C-alpha cells in the first residue's frame, strides 16, 4: 500500500516515570484518532504488544519520531534509549523526567544501597525478614536470568543520548503535545534543541493580583486555603512561577495550587532551584538573623521544594557522599578498634 508508506513511524517509550505522560498522550481525546491516521506506532509498551526485538529489526533512522518519557534509572532504560536513538530521526524528551530528571531524580540525594535499605527494609509496609534485595543475576534450573542494573543516580535523557526537542511538563499538556505533533507532521520543525513551551516566566501568564513580595511567615499548601485572587508568593506559599517556563496554561494556579516547577527553568535562569531559593528567601521581612531565621525555617526541605523536578539538570546533580561516607568510615574504625 503506497499510502501507508507515507505514514509516519512513531515510537513511544516510558523509562523511569509514573505513567502520567502516557495518559497525557491519550488526553489528546479525539485527536488521538488523527494521530493514528497519520502515524504507525512501532513501539508503545503501555498500550501495544511490540517487543524490543521488533524495534531492533527496524533499519537505523527508520522511525520518524520517538516520544521518550521518564528518566534513566537502570541499565534497561539506558539500553532502550540508545536503541531508540539509533532507530529514530527525531528524539523528543517528553515530560519533566526525560527533560530534567523529574520526581525520580529526587532520589539523587541517596545512593542505591540506601534506597534498597529503605525500600526493601525499613518502610513500614515492608515485610522482608530474609533481607532479599534485587539482584542482577539469578541462577535458575533453566539457566541464569539477568535483570537490569539499578543505578546509583538518576539521569535525564540527554545525559545518555542526543535529544532533538524537549517537551516539558508533569505531564505535558495536550495543547503542547498537539503543537509538537502538527510541527512533526507538517515538517515545520523548530531549531534542534528547542524546548516546546513558553519563553517567559510563568508569572507573565498568571492573572493573580501582585503587589509587594514581603512575607512574615511561609506556609505549605496543606496548612492554608489560599486566596484565589492574590499572588501565592505574597501569601507565603512557595510558587515557582518566577523561575519556571510558561506554557502550561497555569493549570496549577487555576486549581489554587502553586507552581511546582515542572516546566523547568526559564531560558535565562542559571539554575532553577537556586534561582527560586533566592526569589523565595528574599521575600522574608526583617533585617537581622533573630527575626529572619524563624521565618525562613518555614521553608522546610529546600532541595525537595526548589529542585522538585530539576535535580538531574542542576549544577550539583547528586549528593556529595563525603559527609556520609566519612561518618561511616569513622564508625567502622571505632567498631574495629
Amino acid at each position, binding site marked *: 500500500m503506497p499510502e501507508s508508506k507515507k505514514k509516519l513511524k512513531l515510537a513511544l517509550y516510558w523509562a523511569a516515570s509514573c505513567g502520567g505522560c502516557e495518559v497525557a498522550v491519550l488526553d489528546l481525546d479525539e485527536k488521538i484518532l488523527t494521530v493514528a491516521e497519520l502515524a504507525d506506532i512501532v513501539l508503545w509498551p503501555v498500550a501495544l504488544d511490540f517487543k524490543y526485538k521488533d524495534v531492533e529489526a527496524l533499519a537505523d533512522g527508520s522511525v520518524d519520531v520517538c516520544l521518550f518519557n521518564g528518566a534513566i534509572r537502570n541499565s534497561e532504560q539506558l539500553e532502550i534509549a540508545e536503541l531508540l536513538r539509533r532507530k529514530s530521526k527525531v528524539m523528543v*524528551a517528553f515530560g519533566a523526567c526525560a*527533560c*530534567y530528571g523529574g520526581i525520580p531524580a529526587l532520589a539523587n*540525594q541517596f*545512593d542505591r544501597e540506601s534506597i534498597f535499605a529503605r525500600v526493601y527494609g525499613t518502610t513500614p509496609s515492608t515485610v522482608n525478614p530474609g533481607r532479599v534485595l534485587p539482584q542482577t543475576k539469578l541462577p535458575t534450573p533453566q539457566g541464569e536470568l539477568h535483570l537490569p542494573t539499578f*543505578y*546509583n*543516580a538518576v*539521569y535525564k535523557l*540527554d*545525559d*545518555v*543520548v*542526543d*535529544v532533538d526537542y*524537549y517537551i*516539558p511538563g508533569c505531564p505535558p499538556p495536550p495543547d503542547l503535545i498537539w503543537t509538537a505533533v502538527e510541527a512533526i507532521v507538517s515538517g515545520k520543525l523548530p531549531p534542534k*534543541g*528547542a*524546548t516546546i513551551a513558553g519563553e517567559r516566566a510563568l508569572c507573565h501568564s498568571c492573572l493573580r493580583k501582585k503587589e509587594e513580595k514581603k512575607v512574615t511567615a511561609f506556609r505549605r499548601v496543606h496548612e492554608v486555603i489560599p486566596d484565589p485572587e492574590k499572588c501565592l508568593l505574597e501569601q507565603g506559599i512557595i510558587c515557582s512561577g518566577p523561575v519556571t517556563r510558561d506554557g502550561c496554561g497555569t493549570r496549577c494556579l487555576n486549581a489554587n495550587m502553586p507552581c511546582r516547577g515542572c516546566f*523547568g*527553568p526559564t*531560558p535565562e*535562569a*542559571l*539554575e*532553577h*532551584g*537556586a*534561582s527560586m*531559593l*533566592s526569589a*523565595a*528567601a*528574599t521575600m*522574608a521581612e*526583617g*533585617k*537581622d*538573623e533573630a527575626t*529572619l*531565621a524563624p521565618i*525562613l525555617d518555614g*521553608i522546610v526541605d*529546600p*532541595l525537595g521544594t*526548589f529542585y522538585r523536578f*530539576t535535580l538531574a*539538570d*542542576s*549544577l*550539583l*546533580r*547528586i*549528593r*556529595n*557522599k*563525603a*559527609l*556520609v561516607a566519612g561518618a561511616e568510615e569513622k564508625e567502622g574504625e571505632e567498631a574495629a578498634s
Partner: protein
Amino acid sequence: MTENVTAKGGQGGGPAWEPKVVAIFCNWCSYTGADLAGISRLKYPAGLRIVRVMCSGRVSPAFVLKAFHEGADGVLVGGCHPGDCHYLEGNYKTLKRKLVFERLLEQFGIEKTRFRLEWISGGEGDKFARVANELIKEIEALGPLGSVAERLRQADGLSLRAEGGAGSA
C-alpha cells in the same frame, strides 16, 4: 607576591593539595577591605581568589553552586555591614538567602563551613586576612570537595554526554 603564598604543596613532603576558595566581594566594602589588606601587606593564603561584584545582594546562590561545580573547595561571600549597604538593602538579601542556602548545601552533602558569609568593611583589612586564613584552615581540615563530574563518573561509571540540556535551550 610569592612571600604571601603559604608553603604547602610539595615542600618537605607536605600535602600536595591546597584548597581553592572563591571569594565574591562587594565593590564598596569587602573588596576595598581586601585591597587594604594588600596595601597593609597582611598575609593571606594564595588559594583564595577574589571576584568583585557591585553588591553582595547580586550574589545569587547559583553563583556559589557554580563555583562548587567548577571545583572550588569553599566559597566566601563578603558584603557591607548591616546598615552600610551602598544600595541600602542588598546585604540583607544576602543574609536571607544564606539562612536557607546553608540548609540546601547540607542536603547536597556539602559541609556548612565550605560556605561563609562575612561583613567586611573597607577599613577592615585585618578582618579580611583573619577570615581568609581561618576559612582556608577549616577547609584544609575538611579536605578537597571533588568535582561534580568525578562524582557522577564514580556513581555508575557511565560516560555522560556534555552538559547542556533543556534548561539551556
